[in-house]
């Protein structure tokens, strides 16, 4: 790089050092942009649980700073997870499918299986424990996790016993569903049992969490049409 000698070296020097090949674009020092990184790396390189727990606690206290109640706090955690779901959808589709051009989920069940197996394995290293359809409402599906990783180091104070910090994971699920074109009326995380003394399985898994997915009516309508078309 040759530049004409400046009359005022004090202002000219820092500019020169910032400028690279094309104006306005600054490369990292190792000259590698995000486009030079491999999408398939880090199959074994996982994040340590301690650093995740630390970060997650900070996220909760950040969200808690300006909230009015438990519902508001859960909504904030949900919103933090949502963009993550949108991103993970495409990333995991490219990673899992041998032929990426055949991988888009178009029906509800493949989408939910994608969430309970692929997404869960990516996030927590194991599949989800159960996937059920609500008997009362056809639009509702439930994914249960006996011991959510996000809750393993969180003790909820007694006065906020309704709070389930897995709302963050619910946000991720909502992001995946929304991104794939399955609009939801919200995904929420609930404790499986409010009163642990009543039920035996709840005692075995005191932290069992149910993610309730409510699909929008238009999704069910489309599902019916598709079911007829393939039958």
């Amino acid at each position, binding site marked *: 790089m040759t530049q004409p000698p400046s009359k005022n070296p004090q202002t000219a020097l820092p500019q020169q050092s910032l400028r690279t090949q094309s104006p306005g674009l600054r490369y990292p020092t190792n000259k590698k942009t995000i*486009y030079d990184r491999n999408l398939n790396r880090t199959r074994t390189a996982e994040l340590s649980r301690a650093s995740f727990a630390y970060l997650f606690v900070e996220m909760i206290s950040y969200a808690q700073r300006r909230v009015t109640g438990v519902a508001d706090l859960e909504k904030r955690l949900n919103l933090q997870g949502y963009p993550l779901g949108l991103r993970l959808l495409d990333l995991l589709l490219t990673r899992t499918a041998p032929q990426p051009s055949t991988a888009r989920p*178009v029906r509800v069940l493949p989408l939910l299986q994608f969430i309970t197996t692929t997404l869960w394995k990516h996030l927590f290293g194991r599949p989800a424990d159960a996937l059920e359809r609500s008997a009362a409402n056809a639009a509702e599906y439930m994914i249960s996790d006996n011991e959510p990783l996000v809750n393993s180091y969180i003790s909820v104070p007694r006065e906020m016993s309704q709070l389930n910090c897995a709302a963050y994971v619910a946000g991720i699920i909502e992001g995946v569903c929304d991104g794939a074109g399955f609009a939801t009326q919200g995904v929420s995380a609930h404790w499986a049992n409010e009163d642990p003394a009543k039920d035996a399985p709840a005692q075995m898994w005191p932290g069992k969490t149910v993610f309730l997915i409510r699909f929008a009516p238009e999704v069910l309508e489309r599902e019916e049409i598709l079911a007829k078309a393939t039958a």
Partner: protein
Amino acid sequence: MSFYFAIIGTKDNPIFTHEFGTSKAGGDGLSRFRDDQRHLNQFIVHSSLDIVEEVQWGSGAMYLKALDRFQNNHISAFLTGANIKFILLSNPDTHAPARTTSTSSNRASTYAAYNPTSPAVEEATKNFFLEVYDAWVKTVMNPFYQLNAPVRSPVFRARVAAAAKKFL
């Protein structure tokens, strides 16, 4: 051949557009759209979005092949997992100004043979889309990128141009 490539967001908003010509058969990689055709391209691509939405739920395929044509403009489409649409308009430039009269008849005959549904063309288009998709996923993974925001990265544009040069 001239190409017009557009990435369309979930709200039918353009995110990224790129215009280029073929690099095969001695092409120089420059598009030969007439000035009055450039805005028409946008209309053609926009009108094809309806057809993309019609076939969107028919199969789980991302590559939707050749979908639509308007006069001699052919439309191929690709859908990402998050329903971002990649649309490629290809146009054998029959009315491009011929450089010399001797080659013009020769060129017209190759354009007449252009068939967007032939396996070779489909395969090339698919490979182009997959390469762009790879770069697209990396864009989406950028934590500072928000859904449906325009992509301004010159590196991304260079990636698309490289894929175009390689396959189209």
